[in-house]
């Protein structure tokens, strides 16, 4: 049993799904084998396999529509897979739903809380759902929610809703936490605060699955990352090695309407390189690269 925390790539599963046996790894915290999910004729997830060790932060990266959310929704039992097997701490997400939900905390997209309940009331309610819940005051403090406890959910900003959602994912003292785009909608300071919080949670031995758009977030937090594209695994590796592979970078080529300073772009977390080729500019990087480059130049 490899109880690994901290950096580095724990054990097996080198690169890609190919080097992965069909024998379930009984000691993994989360085990996904040949997962398949279709919506009508659309194949959302196709033969996805990975395993997450206890105490590991495992990232799932990929463009929109790659199947990231569908994958984690199957892992927490919200969706019924069409094929494959999933085990979370030895539990089948479909067969053992209630037991699973007692030990797995989730922060989801497309979910909300009652508009006319207050932050403190919601936290108190969700706290009561778990027998071995976390300390309520500590959670509120670490997510900066203590002074917001008397505010109605509907009056919260997007960032605060997001923080409350993360708080609820951690409130049950989960053994596994699934966080789907947890820093989307947060300002840079709140993002960094959240990263520090997640590292603290991992240091307590919690296994974390992190769905993200951001390579910088993955590089900062994740021990290993899987890259999904159109429902299939493209690579599984450490974020550093993944970023070094040429194929990972996105490439944007354009002719600027006027001169601009390269530093405008190189300062962005999504951008890795900026090159000039005659009149053309070639930018490589990750995330929503094209949008961000266009936006930055338009605002300059």
């Amino acid at each position, binding site marked *: 049993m490899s109880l690994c925390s901290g950096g580095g790539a724990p054990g097996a599963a080198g690169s890609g799904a190919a080097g992965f046996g069909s024998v379930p790894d009984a000691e993994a915290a989360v085990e996904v084998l040949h997962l398949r999910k279709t919506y009508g004729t659309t194949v959302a997830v196709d033969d996805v396999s990975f395993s997450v060790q206890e105490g590991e932060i495992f990232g799932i990266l990929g463009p929109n529509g790659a199947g990231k959310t569908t994958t984690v929704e199957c892992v*927490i039992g919200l969706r019924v897979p069409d094929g494959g097997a999933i085990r979370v701490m030895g539990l089948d997400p479909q067969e053992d739903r209630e037991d699973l939900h007692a030990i797995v905390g989730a922060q989801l997209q497309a979910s909300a809380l009652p508009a006319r309940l207050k932050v403190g009331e919601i936290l108190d309610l*969700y706290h009561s*759902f778990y027998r071995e819940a976390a300390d309520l005051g500590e959670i509120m403090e670490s997510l900066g929610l203590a002074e917001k406890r008397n505010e109605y959910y509907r009056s919260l900003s997007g960032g605060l809703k997001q923080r409350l959602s993360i708080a609820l994912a951690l409130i049950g003292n989960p053994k596994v936490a699934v966080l789907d785009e947890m820093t989307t909608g947060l300002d840079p300071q709140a993002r960094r605060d959240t990263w520090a919080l997640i590292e603290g949670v991992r240091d307590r031995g919690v296994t974390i699955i992190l769905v993200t758009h951001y390579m910088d977030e993955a590089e900062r937090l994740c021990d290993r990352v899987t890259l999904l594209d159109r429902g299939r695994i493209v690579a599984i590796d450490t974020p550093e090695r993944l970023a070094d592979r040429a194929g990972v970078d996105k490439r944007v080529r354009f002719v600027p309407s006027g001169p601009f300073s390269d530093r405008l772009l190189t300062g962005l977390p999504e951008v890795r390189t900026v090159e000039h080729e005659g009149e053309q500019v070639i930018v490589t990087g990750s995330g929503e690269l094209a949008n961000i480059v266009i936006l930055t130049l338009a605002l300059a």
Partner: protein
Amino acid sequence: MSIHASLLPARTPRSAFGKLLESEAKYAWRAPVGLIFGVTVPVLVLVILGTVPGVNKPVKAFGGLTYFSIYFPILIVLALAVLSLISLPLHLANYREQGILRRMSTTPVPPGWMLAAQVIINLVLAAVALGILVVAGTAGFGLGAPKAPGGFTLALALTIAAMFAIGLWVSAIARTTGGASVIGQLLFYPLLFFAGLWLPREHMAPVLRDISDWTPLGAAVRSLQSSMLGAFPSAQSLLVLAAWAVVFGVLAVRFFRWE
């Protein structure tokens, strides 16, 4: 496997249901759809009824009961219909549409808890409406006690069960508040028509009254009225109510989804 099994904490403590009920009650108070419509609509009808001359005169054919006493069951089923077909499904559909049920479905809380909490809250509202109707009716309209109290209680309990089963079924199949509103109202008006809200059952053509006997609110009014007059409700109307309760209760459980 065995390593993990010992790590499992027990499931959601029962006491959490109290918390859920408490927060749902706060919500019902702060967004008082059920309170406004479920309680005030029947009270408004009662007030309008009060302007009809002779409604509080004792009638010989009713064994000395007033017209109001015979109309009283219709007010009761009106309150129950608003709460079960409008208030309950709209709230749950709103929760589904917003993703609030989806969020809760990732906790160890059993799905039935939210339904149970909502039914309890709407039952409390029904009790409030009933209380106001009884007090106002007794004070202003010569409302007497039902002459067959046992039959009245049984008929009322079965009516509540039937109507909330139908309301839960609507909640189970409606994906959006818009859908819940349409389905709820498609049931609301016909069922209240057959209850005799606009045209009393006694004045219905025989074929309409026969249909009414098989509808939940027709059977409800029939059995409640006969209890008011002193006769134990007919087995037919009680069985009709029970059948609606069982069939739609099963369908509601069968089709309920978190999202």
